[in-house]
């Protein structure tokens, strides 16, 4: 162990520690600080211990928002992951089509979140929106995302899928491109069907990128705020009030900083735990009997 003596290499980690401290540790601790106080105004606060946590856990509206959030993220993953894989499989493998499809796929990813909301508000408007007017006037189906909870959900889901499926597709495409050509040759020589090739070569080889895709899409959809806020403001009623919309209502709308702080920490823990579970599960998928 002698060579570790007088080793100042750890000093090199100081910049990272400082950045992490200011970017996450200090803000997080501020939230912890809020969560144990009842704050009336600047300089006026009262230490209340775990009171806020108890409030949050008893809040029926928060429970609703939580289940709504789980349903939303679950649907997003169920639709976006298979759709993304299907898109990646359909994308061209060589020629000018590659760059063309990559650019087209990446376009939605480049648009700011709140702009996405604005685009979709116009898109689904029953009077002038391309989609809204088409469904209402041509198909004759009443569709109004501002009046009906189901329509609001469909719109929010469509928007989310349109916005983020390309990310899954691009990741899956990168995974597919990394598979050496000889694997496909070997499968052909074995007489494997296209399905068997997908199931036993492409899918296992994409496991790494798909794990990342699932984690990213889960986290992002669980934190969704700007798009539904712009689109419906959480309505109609509370039908699209997802967790972060409810959180902002608490913190800014009602200036309930203590409750919002406690809520934030619980929110944070839920995401942390679920990501850990997803990661562990996906890491071990396909390592079992694998028949």
């Amino acid at each position: 162990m002698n060579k570790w003596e007088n080793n100042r290499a750890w000093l090199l980690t100081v910049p990272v520690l400082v950045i992490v401290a200011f970017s996450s540790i200090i803000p997080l601790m501020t939230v912890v600080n809020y969560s144990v106080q009842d704050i009336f105004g600047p300089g006026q606060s009262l230490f209340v211990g775990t009171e806020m946590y108890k409030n949050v856990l008893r809040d029926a509206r928060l429970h609703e928002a939580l289940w709504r959030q789980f349903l939303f993220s679950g649907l997003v993953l169920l639709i976006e992951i298979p759709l993304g894989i299907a898109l990646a499989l359909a994308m061209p493998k060589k020629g000018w089509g590659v760059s063309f499809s990559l650019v087209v796929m990446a376009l939605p990813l480049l648009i700011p979140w709140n702009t996405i909301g604005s685009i979709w508000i116009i898109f689904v408007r029953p009077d002038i929106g391309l989609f809204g007017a088409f469904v209402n006037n041509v198909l004759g189906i009443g569709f109004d995302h501002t009046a009906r909870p189901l329509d609001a959900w469909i719109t929010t889901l469509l928007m989310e899928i349109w916005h983020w499926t390309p990310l899954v597709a691009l990741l899956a495409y990168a995974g597919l491109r990394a598979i050496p050509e000889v694997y496909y040759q070997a499968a052909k020589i074995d007489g494997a069907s296209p399905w068997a090739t997908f199931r036993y070569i492409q899918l296992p080889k994409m496991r790494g990128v798909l794990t990342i895709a699932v984690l990213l899409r889960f986290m992002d959809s669980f934190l969704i705020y700007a798009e539904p806020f712009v689109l419906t403001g959480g309505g109609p009623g509370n039908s699209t009030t997802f967790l972060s919309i409810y959180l902002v209502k608490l913190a800014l709308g009602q200036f309930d900083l203590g409750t919002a702080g406690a809520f934030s920490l619980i929110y944070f823990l839920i995401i942390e735990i679920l990501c850990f579970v997803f990661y562990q599960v996906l890491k071990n998928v396909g390592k079992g009997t694998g028949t």
Partner: protein
Amino acid sequence: MEIVLDGVSKVINGETHLNSITLQLTSGATNVILGHTLAGKTSLLRLMAGLDRPTKGRIFLDGRDVTGLFVRKRSVAMVYQQFINYPSMTVYDNIASPLKMSGLPSADIDRKVRAAAATLHIDRLLDRMPAELSGGQQQRTAIARSLVKDTELLLLDEPLVNLDYKLREELQAELQDIFRARKAIVVYTTTEPSEALMLGGNLVVMDEGRILQTGPTSSVYHHPSTTRVAQVVSDPPINFLPGVVAGGKARLGRDIDIAMTGHLSAVPDGEYAFGVRPNHLFLHAQGAGNVEISVKVELAEINGSETFIHVSHGDLHLVLQEDGIHPRYIGSNITVYANPGCFFVYEKPGRLLASPFGAG
């Protein structure tokens, strides 16, 4: 069984990968295709497997025209340079996969899988996943997968190139026995002359998409028909010295004189390229009649249990291959001995005129 390629060419994007190849390979002896990287070995195997269609020419298997026959309808197995196994299947399921596709009863599958695994000494690893195996074990699995089904063609594309020296020697020895026991037409590609010599059988020498020479391995080694073949079948490459023959004597380079006796005596006067393999140049005199060449050491590479010594004599560069480890100081002057009885003589365009092994 035999596979016949008749005037087969493969052109991709205007680039000729194979140039009118005519070749007949039979079962019973290992067919080794030797050539440098990009010589067209893999392209040739892909055509035989049916993975690609030739641009021109026809392929016959036992007299049947299989040129346009899709790979799934052919009876072929292939082993690659990379270790290709299904990543999410156990070793057992990997080996069983070609049989499962053909719908054999599971008792037969089990028997064949275990037999193939035993042949390659991986019978204790059957429950493992490929990622849990060493490189050698992964390639053994891939080879077992190719052997489990009795195919008409067994193609191996540089299967041992990614393994370390020790494993390669081990598998080379085992493969010889395995090939001998098969009825299939075995085609094996390699870049290494030593591997080709070890596997024996028939040799096909390829270069730049063409076949340069075919024949029994020892015959090709002893009578490389052109200077290019001589280069491909020798590693390190054969040394060539320009020489002028006049009156029963030859002058190599500027000042090396040799007597044209023995197999050289029939060479008429003229200008030639004299070839001598690195293992026929020595650091000590090997007997009377040796040519002494005083040279300067440029580099000594130690390669396993051999040393390659690169030397220069004026503007001539030579490589010697010596058994054992011979550290040499760069820049030191040494004497190299050559036996004229080991010289190949090529006419200037590169055709073999005299071989130390007599007439081809």
